[in-house]
């Protein structure tokens, strides 16, 4: 049971900076997800914590202990890899017992812990098999089991679900969440899949090009993205962005994209006092755009004339790919809101749920951020 602290951690590979001045605190028993596009340095950050890479600058603490020079085995961590990384010539039991044997744990205790972990993961009947006789999902369970039996202070996961098929991934996702609740240990989980991040995390840290963009709860990340990148990265389908200018007067402000304009509601207007004439990036999530026939009650509706480009029926909802002038965007609408390619529809935007970013400072938080 331990907290983890990245204190100004930088990792370079030659001239490439993989992790750039990372400051991140992870509390005891927290489930933190490091998320970002591939090659952003999230895995490197995790490997530095595991001790598989030496950091170039800064320090990493597990609990109160600086672990910069502590070898992996003495860091009290366990890691689950994307490729499972099982020992192919050992049985499942031996795979799980390997770490304990190396630590000279008494045989009876090894047996008890392995059986217990196998029971938690539902792999008791597989203990005698070799990894090659197992399916992908079963292998990943064994990898989890190998981590569990060690009873480490911190669990590290490096994209553990990426090799599984879609259905199994959803299932295993829930199991890992349950496991976290059951074990009550610090979990640090790396993924490029924002859905995994949103569904599992207590807190998400979004990384891009080695730089931490934002770390917050999933809900806050969704509602108050720190910059355009985070806004676009979190949420599926991702947020629509339009280049726009703020026009009108102090009393009656508009966000003008050139093709359509949205009247700024009173609640938002107050925070845009010096906004007139500013070039902005206007963002709205697909779920805040409605089919005219099925508009939720109580929204600040703004109509936007659009043409349907592509429709994707998902069953419980429809994704509409639309064009408004030369702006393309995606709407996620009620499944009854049928539309066909080429149809002209007056889509309804919820003008209360929008983000505005300064076009000259994309790395700055939304101009609408509270406080």
């Amino acid at each position, binding site marked *: 049971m331990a907290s983890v602290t990245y204190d100004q951690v930088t990792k370079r590979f030659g001239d490439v900076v993989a992790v750039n001045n990372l400051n991140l605190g992870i509390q005891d028993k927290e489930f933190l997800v490091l998320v970002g596009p591939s090659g952003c340095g999230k895995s490197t950050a995790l490997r530095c914590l*595991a*001790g*598989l890479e030496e950091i170039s600058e800064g320090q990493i603490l597990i609990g109160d202990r600086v672990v910069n020079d502590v*070898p*992996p*085995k003495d860091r009290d*961590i*366990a*890691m689950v*890899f*994307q*490729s499972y*990384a*099982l*020992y*192919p*010539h050992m049985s499942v039991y031996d795979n799980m017992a*390997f*770490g304990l044997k*190396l*630590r000279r744990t008494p045989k009876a205790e090894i047996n008890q812990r392995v059986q217990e972990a196998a029971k938690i993961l539902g792999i008791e009947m597989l203990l005698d098999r070799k990894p090659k006789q197992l399916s992908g999902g079963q292998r990943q369970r064994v990898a989890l089991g*190998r981590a569990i039996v*060690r009873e480490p202070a911190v669990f590290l996961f490096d994209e553990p679900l990426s090799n599984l098929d879609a259905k199994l991934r959803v299932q295993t996702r829930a199991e890992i969440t349950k496991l976290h609740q059951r074990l009550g240990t610090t979990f640090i989980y790396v993924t490029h899949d924002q859905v995994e991040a949103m569904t599992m995390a207590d807190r998400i840290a979004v990384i891009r090009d080695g730089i931490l963009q934002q770390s917050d709860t999933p809900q806050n990340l969704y509602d108050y993205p720190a910059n355009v990148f985070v806004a676009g990265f979190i949420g599926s389908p991702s947020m629509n962005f339009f280049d726009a200018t703020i026009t009108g007067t102090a009393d009656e402000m508009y966000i003008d994209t050139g093709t359509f304009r949205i009247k700024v509601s009173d609640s938002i207007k107050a925070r845009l006092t010096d906004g007139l004439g500013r070039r902005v990036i206007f963002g709205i999530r697909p779920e805040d755009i409605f089919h005219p026939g099925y508009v939720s009650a109580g929204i600040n509706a703004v109509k936007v004339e659009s043409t349907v480009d592509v429709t994707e029926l998902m069953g419980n909802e429809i994704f509409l790919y639309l064009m408004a002038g030369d702006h393309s965007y995606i709407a996620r609408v009620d499944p009854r809101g049928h539309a066909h390619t080429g149809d002209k529809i007056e889509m309804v935007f919820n003008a209360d749920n929008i983000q505005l970013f300064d076009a000259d400072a994309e790395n700055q938080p939304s101009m609408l951020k509270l406080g």
Partner: protein
Amino acid sequence: MRGLRKHRGAILVNLALAVLVLIWLIPSVGLLVSSFRDRFSIQTSGWWSIFPHREWAVVTVIDPREQGLDANAPMDVEGVTGTFEQLREGVEAPDGKRIKWIGNRRIGRIEVQEKQWAVNWGFTLENYRQVLMGKDFEYAHADGTVEIIPGDDFWGAIFNSLAVAIPSTVIPILIAAFAAYGFAWMNFPGRRLLFILVVALLVVPLQVALVPLLSFYKSLELNGTYLAIWLAHTGFGLALATYLLFNYISTLPRETLESAFIDGASHFTIFLRLILPLSVPALASFAIFQFLWVWNDYLVALIFLGGNPNFEVVTMRLAGIVGDRGQDWHLLTAGAFVSMILPLAVFFSLQRYFVRGLLAGSVKG
């Protein structure tokens, strides 16, 4: 239509392969057959005469003096005419018979021969018995004389060869596996340079090392000992062994090793518990290479063990059979086959690894 053509193509390919294999095998088959033929047969006819074939057989023998023939002039015999020289070559009569003068002008004889089906097998296990049992053998010639043939003690040579080949295979594998792991998975300054140096040693022909090594051994008084040849073979084999094993070991999945590190394994534990068991195909394929090479080696053995007759290895013994008794072909064929049995056994017992090991690294999974 297409299926048929495809089928025909496959047959052609198989046929071509079968022919190639056959051509490739002919010398060994010949050797094998010869090793089961008796001394006389080997010396008088080729191994292929075990197949049914037509050859000249004597029908009647004519004494030219009884017929009053003069060998200095053309002669009339059995309806053909020829000089002595022509008859020596053999003159064929119109009825298919051949008239041949055997021997010299004065006391020779004339044979009337006819083509008949024949099989010259002369099957015997005597060759093997003589090679392996090391006893003297009596050999009765057709004319009733008895020749005493000294046998050959091959067993001693086989044991000497084993005593050379097994350590010469195991020692370099052990060292090379450690080295390959170090080069593949450990960080130390100069790693690349050292590895390049080791691989570069592959181009050094072992012959250039023989004389310096010999004088070096002399100062250590190692010449003519097993240790000398073990070390020599280890040194000569190490570059290739390190290179082959490095290629395999460096393709083992990194995450598996990292997992072991986190599980608490040291480099040594990882080597023993993970690398060695996972590298069995590569180790086995190199073991075959090295064993065959050492077993078949003549030069290195001759130089470092040649001075000591007690340590004569199989290849030296074989050379001895030819050299000491140039005419004892029957012993050479049997000895050659005996010397092949062990390499064949090694190869077939490890061959599934051999094929896998040669492919190692080229195909994932």
